[in-house]
């Protein structure tokens, strides 16, 4: 009986840990790096260069 309860308890703790691993993480868990994110004109990715997003629509 005690053995069964222990096994189920371990399973519950395991699920809690698993749940903790799969819950959402904010997008700011990446290392910080000073890259200028100012809006630029529409670029296509070339090589390892990080593409910059399209500028906002023209006023």
């Amino acid at each position, binding site marked *: 009986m005690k053995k*069964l309860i222990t096994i189920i308890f371990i399973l519950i703790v395991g699920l*809690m840990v698993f749940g903790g691993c799969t*819950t*959402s993480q904010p997008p*700011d868990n990446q290392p910080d790096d000073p890259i200028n994110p100012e809006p630029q004109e529409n670029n296509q990715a070339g090589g390892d260069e*990080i*593409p910059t*997003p399209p500028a906002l629509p023209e006023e």
Partner: protein
Amino acid sequence: MSKKIIISIMMIILIGLGGFVTASLLEVQAPIYKGWNLLFGFANPNQLSGKLEESSIKAVYAFIPTIQEYAMVYPDVDHDKVGLIDDDELLNTAFWVYSSDETGEELNGIMNADEYNLEEEITLIGDRNIYKGWNFVGITPEMVGKHLNEIKGNCEIEKAFGWEYDHQKWQLLEDYSKFNKESLLTGIVVKVVSNCNLGTLEEEISPPPEIPN
């Protein structure tokens, strides 16, 4: 007898916890074309759960409406700017996502659609803050089948644009531009004159007819 009760309770707890873990991630689908895409709640390639490889996503940017500037969220995070807005609010906007690839296949009748997990529950449009200037608004299920005019709530919209994936350029949205199924979980940009809330118009229900004399 008591053994059976204890086992039953334990099983219920186990099933409940399993359900909680599963429900914490909501899988959705949206078209992801080669090039720039506006996608609702997509902040990191690890949210992909379909055919596209995570390595296809080269960059993701958020738009911070309070300062009217872009902020990189992948591959690096601009913490100074991202920190200016709550995570749940940010994850209820549309993000710029650059993909170097596309599936080239239809999924549920939508070309190049692929699946990803939302990390935050979808907030009703009426509960999302819209700030003076530009805002990146995600198209969510309650907006499908409605015109832009029908979801403007108390906002005075100056301009609104959608993104043409094929031609990688902006497309002006008119008041009567309708949000279709294909645009679900993508995004539009809306410029408003002051802080406000979008929202669907509620039909006024007239009182029941009076009893005849």
